[in-house]
């Protein structure tokens, strides 16, 4: 691959754009310059750190190290899902629900891809396993977070409707059916839109990166298709299992709505 290596000067030039944007924000009093600069710095630091970690993990392709890294990634993703809920589930459920759903979907789909589709030797070769899992987790995380947030918010706002349906003798599944479908839709809309717009409106980031790094376009395209399908499947399974668990958890065994499993909203 004829990859053009970027120099620190190249990156500094790109950073000037961010500084210009911050200046504009200050001039227009958008109040965004502080967050913008802090988060741009976070990007640099986090990516440099992860680069070092990846370098170390790539150097010794050991199942233990790959597993450890995957666990840390899942733990952080689970926390992010919980932190993005306005009314999250109380206690361990709030954390375990999202992390569990992502574990089931992201891990199993990534495993399937590594073992069956890519078929690398060894299957856990970090150069494939880590970026794949990262991409899966990143997307599943957004989908699960959106869907759960929608579910709990709607259940809270429409509790009178849910209870009215229970009073008429509907089961807990019937009473929350529409809300759950709406939540699934909002969790999956992003990846569905991404598949529709892929290549026409947007060149997916991974493919662009590969092409910039010198990979032949058709190879990049094939990987992108693979990734899209895996992400769609992972997000879909993650969202549906998280919603199934959460909507079940909102009711007790006597089909009573129990919104006290939700924590008070954070401001």
């Amino acid at each position, binding site marked *: 691959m004829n990859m053009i290596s970027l120099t620190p000067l190249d990156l500094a030039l790109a950073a000037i754009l961010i500084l210009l944007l911050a200046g504009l924000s200050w001039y227009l009093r958008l109040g965004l310059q502080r967050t913008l600069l802090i988060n741009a710095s976070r990007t640099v630091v986090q990516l440099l750190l992860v680069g070092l970690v990846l370098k170390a993990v790539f150097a010794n392709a050991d199942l233990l190290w790959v597993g450890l890294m995957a666990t840390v990634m899942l733990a952080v993703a689970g926390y992010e899902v919980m932190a993005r809920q306005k009314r999250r589930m109380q206690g361990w459920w709030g954390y375990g629900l999202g992390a569990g759903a992502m574990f089931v979907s992201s891990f199993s789909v990534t495993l399937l891809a590594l073992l069956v589709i890519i078929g690398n030797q060894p299957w856990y070769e970090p150069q494939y396993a880590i970026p794949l899992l990262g991409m899966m987790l990143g997307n599943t995380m957004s989908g699960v977070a959106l869907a759960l947030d929608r579910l709990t918010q709607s259940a809270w706002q*429409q509790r*009178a*409707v849910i*209870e*009215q*349906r*229970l*009073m*008429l*003798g*509907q*089961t807990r599944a019937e009473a929350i059916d*529409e809300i759950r479908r709406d939540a699934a839709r909002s969790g999956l809309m992003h990846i569905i839109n991404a598949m529709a717009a892929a290549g026409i409106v947007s060149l997916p980031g991974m493919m662009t990166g590969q092409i910039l790094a010198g990979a032949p376009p058709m190879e990049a395209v094939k990987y992108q298709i693979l990734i899209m399908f895996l992400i769609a499947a992972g997000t879909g399974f993650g969202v549906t299992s998280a919603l199934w668990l959460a909507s079940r958890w909102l009711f*007790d065994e*006597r*089909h*009573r*709505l129990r919104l006290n499993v939700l924590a008070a909203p954070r401001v």
Partner: protein
Amino acid sequence: MNEPRLRVSEIRTQGRGPYSLHVAAGECVSLRGPSGSGKSLLLRAIADLDPHDGEAFLDGEACSSVPAPQWRRQVALLPVESQWWLDTVGEHFPAAPCPWLAPLGFDEAALRWQVGRLSSGEKQRLALARALMNRPRALLLDEPSASLDEASTAALEGVVADYRRSEQAAVLWVSHSREQAARVAARHFQLQAEGLEEGTP
């Protein structure tokens, strides 16, 4: 002693009670008490919508021994404010024709109305018709005529009385009005924090 249609035994809910009462088949019992005394909470507990201690029995069958949705179809709670979540009125009704629309002052066209345009009085009467479609054996009415004028109140009271007699249903009627309680019910209860007191309307 014959098992009454609806028997409430030592129900405690949200720190109130215990409440015990029974309603015979075809009987109507009124329940009164100041605002905030927990009348609605008691009805919710009987319909098994809130966790509670104690037990309710329908024809001798304990609530906890029946699946909750089946219990709620048989013990219908009509809340003060009914909810309508689909576009038209008719979508909330089962496909069978509804015999209570006409006596409540509606014709079949009412089923095609948009729910967003219902007045609170129309909602209240339609909610009764909707609840009766399950053919409940017990009716828990929470101020069912709160937003009705005199004529509609009379129509509603008539429909409930007819249903009660023809189906031998037990009716527990929460009302703020002493006159209404005297009109619709044969026995009267006053709700107190520590229990129910039977007395005059």
